[in-house]
């Protein structure tokens, strides 16, 4: 494998993991747009996606597709619970924003610990969607799970775009994100939209987890690093811009892969955080411009 092949191979790895960061980043944006809250429980939703699918397959002998759909529903329900039990009481009392953000961080820890108690602490994995050898293109391996991740992510981004632009619920959510008070005066149930934002965000996280787990492992405590990467992706893309977050995720994945390739794994996070600082200094509104 010459240097060019190595670079191409690393680019594929970077784009693949970047798509996952992007999906997590979109989850951040959806909730932020509806409420202004940065939901740090987003990593727990990613973990739940893979973990619940695993449990449904192994303990309940469900087919893979049914288990994955079940995991998305369960995680969506957990998202609703986080909103109703953690965020809503604080929201109703007009708690400061940082209190609500801290509360989501606490929710992340609670979800992790409950998973630890209910399942265990052993690493789990899921089979690849297509158990086929990778496609070899001139010495560069393109594995099918990466293709699933990339194609799945693009489809989700397109579907999400259509949802926000063409459906009544999507338009209502956008209206709330632009001006919650005006939306309420127009008869849009703002609190319901907030719940829906958490459900949607949790489902996106679960999808990212389901796509990702066949390439690595899931465990009760694997969510936080993903939440951090998704958060960085959302900032790079312009906080509140779903498409920006997706592009930001890919940029982050690529820069991490190139840092490992060129400088060594020790520089992976240095590169990621340098990119974040660069955007904060030079273009704080992100790639596509922040919504606020």
């Amino acid at each position, binding site marked *: *494998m*010459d*240097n060019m*092949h*190595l670079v191409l*191979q*690393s680019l594929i*790895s*970077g784009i*693949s*993991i970047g798509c*996952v960061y992007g999906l997590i980043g979109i989850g951040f944006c959806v909730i932020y747009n509806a409420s202004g809250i940065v939901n740090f429980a987003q990593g727990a939703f990613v973990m739940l996606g893979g973990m619940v699918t695993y449990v449904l397959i192994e303990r309940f002998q469900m087919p893979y597709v049914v288990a994955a759909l079940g995991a998305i529903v369960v995680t969506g329900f957990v998202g609703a619970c986080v909103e109703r039990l953690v965020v809503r009481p604080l929201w109703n009392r007009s708690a400061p924003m940082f209190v609500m953000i801290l509360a989501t961080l606490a929710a992340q820890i609670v979800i992790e610990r409950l998973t*630890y108690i209910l399942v265990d*602490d*052993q*690493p*789990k*994995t899921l089979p*690849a969607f297509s158990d086929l*050898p*990778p496609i*070899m293109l001139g010495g560069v*391996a393109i*594995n099918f*799970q*990466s293709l699933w991740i990339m194609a799945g992510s693009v489809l989700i981004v397109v579907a999400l775009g259509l949802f926000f632009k063409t459906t009544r619920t999507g338009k209502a959510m956008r209206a709330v994100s632009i001006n919650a008070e005006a939306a309420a005066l127009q008869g849009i149930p703002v609190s319901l939209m907030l719940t829906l934002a958490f459900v949607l965000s949790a489902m996106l996280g679960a999808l990212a987890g389901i796509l*990702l787990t*066949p*390439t*690595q*492992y899931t*465990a009760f*405590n*694997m969510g*936080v*690093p*993903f939440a951090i990467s998704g958060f960085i992706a959302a900032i790079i893309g312009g906080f509140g811009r779903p498409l920006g977050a997706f592009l930001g995720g890919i940029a982050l994945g690529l820069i991490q*892969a190139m840092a*490992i*390739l060129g400088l*060594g*794994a*020790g520089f*992976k*996070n240095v590169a990621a955080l340098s990119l974040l600082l660069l955007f904060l200094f030079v273009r704080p509104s992100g790639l596509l411009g922040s919504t606020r």
Partner: protein
Amino acid sequence: MFHMRNQFFAGMVSVLAMAGAAQAEDIYKIGISAGLTGYAATVDRAWSDGVQTAVDVLNAKGGIMGRKLEVVVEDNRSNPQEAVTVYRKMVSSDGVNIFSSGCVSAGNAAAAPMVAKSEIPMILCSILPKQERDVVWAFTTLPPAGFEIEKRFEYLRDKTQIRKVGVLHDPTPYALLQKDVAEKVAEKFGIEVVAVEAYKQDDADLSVQLSKMQAAGAGAVMKIGLGGTTLTAAKNLKQLGSDMLLLTSLEDLAVFKPVAEVLGDKFFFVASPSQVFEAYPDGPLKQAIGQFLQPWREKFGDRDPNWASRGWDSIMLTAAAIEKGQSFEGPAVRENLEKITGFQGTTGTYDFAPDKHQGISTNPFVVAQIIDGQVRIAQ
């Protein structure tokens, strides 16, 4: 009358307090700082359970010299800073008499000066602290770092045509130590280390590191480090369509089973004698493992016995040191641990000395595989 009754109650209180103090004095407390959660959870939980099994067995026989044992275990969350906190708590609040701590080496090293100052001996699962003054109070059940590396090189040299390897390691002190050994001794086995790559325990993707090793011509990956990343490495190797073998360090078998499902006969790992007990040749070592495995299996079935067996050893070494010196005092136990030689443990024979606090000196490991769900010594 009132005065007499007061005197009676005061007397009763004193008697009860003295009885309580005597009872507390009678209990010999063993503190464990363990990563019950986090990357070291699998091994440290096994270590703690091994310690508890040994304590239960000794207590059933009346304890050590008639004194019962009690385990105090604190979760350091596989985090060195957290480890210092839990050590401090166990020294100041729980009043532990000896530490039998888990495999979070950086945590044990960070707490070692404080523990040494308190004159409490430590018998560890991890490597010894680096500072000479801290080693005075610390002993380890861990075989030297080179053993795991040498066994893998030996296997590659004797059983394969592979002469170039990549080393993939995490940033823990033990992994770094092993990495240094690998670079140093490879030549002795006619093997060249063509790439050394690091990773973090929470990395989601190792394919760039693995691609670099493949590009450098490595025929095998020597992975050094614990946790689920072994599974990530296996998955990434398969996704890359790589023919490289994966040889990993000692780890809980529960982690290895899904790895073997992914890589099949391309996956090898260093195993301790207790992990391949049935296939291990008869002798004093097998006998010692058998003594541990009986209560272990009664309680935990076919759960991986490796780390637990070393936890068991730590308690048996403690008992031997106390009985040797006929004293429970920290300095005496420490001194008598140094005098233990020829002690048959479950991982090998322990020979301690004042300048040798790492007791195992002969390599007990084998290279193993999981074929059809069964652990076998690799042929």
